[in-house]
């Protein structure tokens, strides 16, 4: 269990590295595969709440370290209404919320029905992006939601969701290597009865 939890943390950190090699898909409304979020969401459904929260903290912290922009700078008398940035650390909250959402269907996952989790990971990504956009809108005001933004969010969620079976397969392999069962109910059913 501890070995598996530790490996999922390493897997999440590795996803930050792999994320650097994934380009934006300009022909799909500039959508992207959010591998870090996907790895977290898939891992969240396979671990207990404390590990999920640790993963959420690590994931959100490093994601913000990667994405946070610097201060505006310049003369404050000229730029009187500076555009607000999101506070460093807001992704931790989003990661945590999505983690709790994923844990909601953990009973189904434990029965071996990982497909529901894969589908939910897509919905969770869409919710994550919607929540992020809503926070930006709230902080900066002036509500605007263009079709291209909606399309970008939908395609990002869809593309990311398509990769979830791969991440789940990886998690099952890791669990096997760590001699740990992430779907105990299904494993019990699969075990032959003598």
């Amino acid at each position: 269990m501890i070995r598996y939890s530790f490996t999922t943390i390493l897997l999440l950190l590795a996803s930050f590295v792999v994320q650097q090699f994934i380009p934006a898909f300009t022909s799909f409304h500039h959508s992207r595969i959010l591998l870090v979020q996907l790895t977290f969401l898939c891992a969240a459904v396979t671990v207990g709440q404390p590990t999920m929260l640790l993963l959420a903290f690590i994931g959100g912290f490093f994601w913000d370290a990667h994405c946070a922009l610097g201060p505006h700078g310049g003369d404050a008398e000229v730029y009187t209404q500076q555009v607000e940035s999101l506070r460093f650390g807001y992704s931790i909250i989003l990661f945590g919320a999505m983690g709790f959402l994923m844990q909601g269907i953990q009973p189904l996952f434990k029965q071996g029905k990982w497909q529901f989790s894969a589908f939910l990971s897509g919905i969770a990504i869409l919710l994550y992006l919607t929540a992020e956009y809503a926070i930006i809108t709230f902080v900066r005001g002036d509500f605007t939601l263009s079709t291209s933004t909606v399309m970008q969010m939908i395609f990002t969620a869809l593309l990311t969701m398509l990769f979830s079976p791969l991440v789940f397969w990886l998690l099952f392999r890791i669990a096997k290597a760590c001699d740990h069962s992430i779907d105990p109910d299904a494993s019990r059913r699969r075990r032959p009865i003598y």
Partner: protein
Amino acid sequence: MKPLNLIALLLFLGGTVWTFTQSERAVREVQHVYFSAMAPFLKSGSIMETQSRTFFDEIQHSTKLEVELGVVRNELGRLRIIESRFREMETENERLRHALNYKKTTHFDVVPAQIIRRQPTTWWQTVDIDAGEERGIGTQLAVLSSDGLVGKIDRIYQKQNRASVLLLTDEKCQVSARVEGSPEVGILSGQRGQFEGNPLLRLRFLSADASLHQGQRVFTTGRGGIFQPNILLGTIDSVEKGALDSEALVRPSVNFADLSTVFVVLSADP
């Protein structure tokens, strides 16, 4: 709720509050450590992205290129004629300036750089360039292309000779701007959620009775301490009149979909 889960939740909330209360300087230090660790991957990632983009672009445009070549050849002939005329005018202009004892026109001290990567973030519109602190680049410096203002330096990747540019099309990049041939000044910035085609910029805080028309050029004022004056930003596309003030949509002079070489302004010699 199990006691262990409750403790984990409290620790999580405590950690989140601690993160939220970090100062700007502490955040920058965290980012410095993060990007130092990620440096080799960022570099190889950007090389891979550039190569794949070039490859796909070549495939996509190979048929168009032949047609474009013919057009470009014709254009080249036309431009040569224009250039010779331009040279004549330049000489004449220089002579007249001399005669009137005017100072020489201002020249920027610039560092050329190539766009090597578009960042895989969610909303921010940033690009990475292959020039950093080793070439004297620091944050908050203006970035130009031959067509006008591109944006400003947002972050320096230390010891990697790379920097991140916040594009003018992003909402967070604000520029003090003036409209040519009018007394109107305002703040120009990008608009949220514009990814397709050529995004328009929004010029805010114009007077309610602003008399502007389509095609008028928009330049930097030089106020604000970041951008030098008289850098072309774009042209007026449309004007939206309000009760208290007006806003104008500005078509940027730079083609942000096709950025390759940019220039970072180190200083503006008077």
